[in-house]
């Protein structure tokens, strides 16, 4: 059984991420972002999800021990919302308050097809809830998807299996959310 843990950054939907992984049949657990990398990896995990949360990445610039996880991880990592923004910041990109924040329903356009979007059409409905966004991708990352008001909706590291999503694949109202999670779990199982 693939083992993917969820790092809790205080998001309203952290527990939904746990539930989606459990429903797919993944061995999963929620861990606080104050846990050390050693504590999290002593169970020999195959991947990590960095949840969203209330912290304003563009203003505060930190997110528990997520920096340590990104520095040491040799397994796939999926950053969601604040987790995605922090990932960009950590690798030298930029996150700033959104000119037009997005709350609720939006259309996502995939600009570059990738394994994480296998089975997801070019345009689909996603749900969001963010005040900040990634305004410049780090050098090692490439853009995968955008929405009308936010360019960096999805990104991927060129050399490592690290992904960032601004939208929330874990909520019921995101059309292909479960598919995206299944794709991530497949990446973790490789």
């Amino acid at each position, binding site marked *: 059984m693939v083992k993917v843990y969820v790092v809790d950054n205080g998001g309203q939907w952290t527990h939904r991420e746990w*539930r989606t992984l459990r429903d797919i*049949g993944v061995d999963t657990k929620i861990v606080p972002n104050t846990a050390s990398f050693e504590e999290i990896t002593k169970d020999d995990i195959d991947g990590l999800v960095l949840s969203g949360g209330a912290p304003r990445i563009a203003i505060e610039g930190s997110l528990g021990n997520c920096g340590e996880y990104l520095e040491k991880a040799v397994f796939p990592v999926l950053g969601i919302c604040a987790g995605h923004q922090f990932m960009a910041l950590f690798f030298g990109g930029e996150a700033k308050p959104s000119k037009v924040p997005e*709350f609720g329903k939006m259309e996502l356009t995939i600009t570059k097809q990738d394994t994480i979007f296998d089975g997801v059409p070019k345009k689909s409905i996603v*749900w969001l809830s963010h005040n900040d966004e990634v305004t410049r991708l780090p050098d090692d990352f490439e853009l995968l998807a955008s929405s009308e008001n936010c360019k960096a909706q999805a990104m991927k590291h060129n050399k490592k299996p690290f992904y960032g999503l601004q939208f929330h694949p874990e*909520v019921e109202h995101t059309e292909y959310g479960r598919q995206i999670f299944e794709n991530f779990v497949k990446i973790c199982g490789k």
Partner: protein
Amino acid sequence: MFNAEKFIEETIAKIKKDVTSKTLIAFSGGVDSTVCAALINRAIGKQLVTVHVNTGYMRKNESENVKKLMEKMRLNYHFIDASKEFYSALKGVEDPEKKRKIIGEKFIRIFEKVARDEKIEYLVQGTIAPDWIESGDTLRDTIKSHHNVGGLPKDMKLKLVEPLRDLYKDEVRKVARALKLPVSEKQPFPGPGLAVRIIGEATPERTEIVREACDIVEKEIESAVEKGLMEMPWQYFAVLLPVKSVGIHGDRRVYGNVIAVRAVQSIDAMTCAFSKIPDEVMDRISTRITNTLKEKINRVVYDVTNKPPSTVEWE
């Protein structure tokens, strides 16, 4: 995938092990507390004391129906009418968080009294995932203090038992169906009740207005669903707004309040989309509310906001 049968089996075994003496369950008659009562009743039988409190902020005829349900389920119950106490505790209170906390504490004080009289150690609550998620903690912002989590007084001595903590409503419904409970499809109703559907002070007079409006919304939507005119919403109700507007009744000016109708589609309450209600159904709701509530309500509006950015209830 969530397996209701396995959950029932494991939960009953766990309760048998953890709950070693007399236990009180806070029973609203909704899906969550009814599932809890059924599970605990199976585990410890007569050791379970069920308490239903009529807060005065219940829906039309609700507490009477809950009494019938407790009898049907053969529960050992107390039925406590505390309407007057709740109304006086909320006198002059307008802030939604204050309302929620006062109600949360009031519930506990009533349970504590029963617990003292009957020498009870444990309190069972039908808390589910969104309740503690939205109540906030060291990592999470407080969206709203659910009365059964963020509204608990700090000095409470009863030991909490919350078997449904990791479940969402759709999963609780699966358990309810497996247990063949008659409430499995009942729409959610907040613990603070109609008090959080009255923006501003929740006086007895204003409660009667919103109680009537909620009843009309429920009956009209249920009849429309039955006729196949629309999909059954996840939750559907009325909110009394402290806004006044000018109207006309029989050639005379009236100046009454506004009712907002709210109906949403959801699976787990963590994200919701507003329901698409056909115009003819809206028309009936609006006419019935304004004609029934006369000079008190002369305008009806429909809430077209998703969650996020809004929440289901207004407070």
